[in-house]
């Protein structure tokens, strides 16, 4: 059985189908690429999977459980984390704190232990800091840990977003154009990072425009066009698929 399964998911905005009966399944440990022209519904699918939008039709199953009626934070605590196309860090918090916030649903200290400074609270706070340090070290940002997120250079902000998402201990990581605006060396770095995350047993759904990244990294590629899935196969096959070529380049009759 699939790890994450979207069954015939539709989402309509003002009469326009942003997602049109999309079926998508992700196997455990897989890197699935999601490509498609601008406005094809890729980010909408992310928003539906993470609970930000409720699907109008269809079901979403994660580890065999219906998640399409859950609140976003409940889905996050089940183990789906994401990054954003246009970076959404907490700008006036430090890099450390950005990562620490994402430990929220993996920790428990509530109001009373906090104000009475119980031993359990102090222990948990140490744990939060320790895991935040580890994650920052993993993405090479430990020395910038006390810098405000908004003051980090663009590439570091992207890395910090991934570190923050990883702090949730996700089983599935959704990356929305992680290499957008990066140069070749930086994308190279990022691909290596994604590969290493996958080696740790995290499944990855990746929206990406750079074909080089998609072809090298993904085990399988799904293609969306006008909200409908038009292909779902190994990268090499997708590359040759006439429907995909038409979606990207237009049909030969017009060319």
């Amino acid at each position: 059985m699939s790890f994450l399964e979207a069954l015939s998911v539709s989402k309509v905005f003002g009469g326009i189908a942003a997602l049109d009966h999309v079926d998508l399944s992700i196997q455990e440990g897989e890197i699935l690429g999601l490509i498609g022209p601008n406005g094809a519904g890729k980010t909408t699918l992310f928003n539906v999977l993470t609970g930000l939008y409720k699907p109008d039709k269809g079901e979403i199953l994660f580890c065999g459980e219906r998640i399409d009626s859950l609140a976003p934070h409940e889905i996050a605590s089940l183990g789906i984390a994401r990054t954003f196309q246009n970076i959404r860090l907490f700008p006036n918090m430090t890099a450390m704190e950005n990562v620490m916030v994402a430990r929220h649903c993996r920790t428990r200290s509530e109001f009373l232990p906090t104000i009475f400074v119980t031993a359990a609270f102090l222990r948990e706070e140490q744990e939060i800091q320790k895991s935040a340090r580890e994650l920052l070290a993993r993405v090479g940002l430990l020395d910038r840990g006390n810098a405000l997120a908004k003051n980090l250079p663009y590439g570091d902000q992207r890395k910090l977003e991934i570190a923050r998402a990883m702090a949730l201990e996700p089983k599935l990581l959704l990356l929305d154009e992680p290499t957008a605006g990066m140069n070749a060396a930086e994308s190279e770095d990022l691909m290596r990072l994604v590969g290493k995350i996958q080696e740790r047993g995290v499944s990855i759904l990746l929206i990406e425009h750079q074909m080089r990244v998609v072809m090298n990294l993904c085990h399988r590629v799904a293609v969306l066009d006008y909200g409908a899935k038009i292909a779902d196969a190994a990268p090499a096959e997708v590359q040759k698929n006439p429907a995909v070529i038409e979606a990207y380049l237009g049909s030969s009759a017009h060319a």
Partner: protein
Amino acid sequence: MSKTVRRSAWAGGLALLLAVPCFLQSTSFAFLIRLAGIAGLYMLLALGLNLVIGFVGLLDLGFMAFYAIGAYTAALLAIHKVPFALSVLAAIGASTLIRLIVGFPALRLRGDYLAIVTLGFGEVVRLTLSNWDSLTNGPKGLPRVGETIPSASLMGITLSSNLHYYYVILASVLGAIWVCTRLNHSRVGRAWVAIREDEVAAELMGVEVTKQKMLAFGLSAAFAGLAGAIFAYWEGFVTPESFTFWESVLLVCAVVLGGMGSILGVLLGALCIVLAPEVLRSALGSSFANARYLLFGLSLILMAIYRPQGLWPSRRRTLELRPAEAEEPPQDTLFDAGRK
């Protein structure tokens, strides 16, 4: 500044706050004790409001409503001879409960819309207090003729002078500062600031946004309820006139002026709004006491232009980045290139 220096600064400041009023009491500066008490009440209110505006980032323009609910609850109970401690607790409970009932639907709104709802609720409370004659005696206030609010007594001591109330208020403010400081750098406080910074991202990173907003909302009202109850006993008299929209606006001023999210900042801001009319009165004559609204308007404009972060801006805490001795450094970094 090292930890010892900071600790001794705190201890010294506290000793001054405890000792100085004792000596002032018999001098011609005794009025300062009362002024400090009033400043303390405003500090409690500003600290409470700061939880909502400064931490969670929700604009609240009707905060005085919960001060009023606290004050009237305490006054009504006091008239019926309920002991001080009990009626203070009841006042805190009533403010918090009503805040949560209002907050539950209102917190679905964001930004300006929430501000309008809070403003509206503030007016509803004031108008209710002015018109519910059978309970609140309307604009004439409580207690009615023939009733009194008895002197409060706490642990066998009857609170009879301004000095007594000064100490009660000092203890409350210190307690409030403690709560705010503990929260500021904790799991809960970080979640609140994350909501302020980006509500959607916070929710997607696993923060139960609605629950956390309710917690902040309720706690802020508890501060206001406490302040209101102390006010009611101290004055021995409450009228709806004390809880106008302008008072709520002044509190927002205190928070913005001092520095949103900054605990020392809002204490400073509260001090400013209490001292300003006194300073104006002595500098320009009594007809200028109300010029404070003009002054605050002007200072807010100037602050917005030249110092939007406030007089004493909040700073995020610097954390230890070197791993502790026992911690093993991560075996493999996920990025090896680029950062050497």
